[in-house]
């Protein structure tokens, strides 16, 4: 994703309010889908989107331009989404697998196959699950995922491979 050139100028001129509003206009929709592909439920994605932009606004004056702004936003959104899932997991006492509770999400009407896939996903360790979700739902390139999740491409590919094998096994699909 390429960000507008004038964002760096806004940053240099400390025009934070203008910059923030443009970032909301350009990035809130793709960020929402990025977050939703991690947390699955609409209400959780909505909360995380709000928290992400609050964090972005509070830290905008301290952004030192070491990466692109959109990469920085995606990193914050990813951390917030993972943090949200951890919080939810703590509330799900006694459950081994993570429960996305999609049956109570009025904004989800996936078919039986998708529901089965999500059930299989919820059995995976967190890292494998996130990599698979970003690849499957967002088709995010590994290089981009590496920047956003601050993990090496090799480690991501390995996690994806393991996730795929486990899901195939869960869904009784052939290995190849």
């Amino acid at each position, binding site marked *: 994703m390429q960000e507008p050139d004038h964002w760096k100028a806004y940053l240099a001129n400390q025009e934070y309010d203008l910059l923030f509003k443009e970032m*909301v206009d350009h990035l809130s929709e793709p960020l929402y889908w990025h977050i939703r592909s991690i947390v699955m439920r609409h209400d959780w994605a909505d909360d995380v989107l709000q928290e992400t932009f609050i964090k972005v606004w509070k830290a905008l004056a*301290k952004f030192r331009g070491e990466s692109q702004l959109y990469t920085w936003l995606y990193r914050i959104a990813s951390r917030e989404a993972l943090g949200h899932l951890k919080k939810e997991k703590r509330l799900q006492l006694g459950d081994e697998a993570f429960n996305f509770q999609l049956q109570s999400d009025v904004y989800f*009407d996936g078919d039986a196959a998708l529901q089965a896939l999500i059930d299989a996903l919820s059995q995976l360790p967190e890292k494998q699950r996130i990599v698979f979700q970003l690849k499957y739902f*967002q088709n995010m390139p590994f290089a981009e995922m590496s920047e956003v999740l601050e993990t090496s491409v090799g480690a991501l590919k390995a996690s994806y491979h393991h996730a795929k094998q486990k899901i195939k096994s869960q869904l009784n699909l052939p290995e190849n």
Partner: protein
Amino acid sequence: MKEQGFKIPDNYFEQRKESLKEISQAEPLSSKPSPLRLWPWLAAAASIVVAIILFPTEHSQDKMEFSNLHSEQVLEFLSEDPYAVHPESFLELSDSSENDWQIIDLQELEHYLDNRSYEYL
């Protein structure tokens, strides 16, 4: 994702964008350095304090302790030319005859040693 069954409320993004833009009015913009960025400085300061306490100063390193001597240092010391280091510590003896020992004035020798020995104790 939309096509797969993940829906959103009608006009969700139009309304959400407006409410998100209001964050910049409601929340103060922080310009203080975050506590996390202070950690490297605090860690560096702590390391310096620990280094000062644990490691000997340059002055104390000059003192030679027998227990700290390495064999290489000892060998190096022994291989030095003693005359070049402390020439006055050696009595010049005549090589003409062993009997020359007999004619050394013992009083003079004692006086010499009394005056010089402090340098090597």
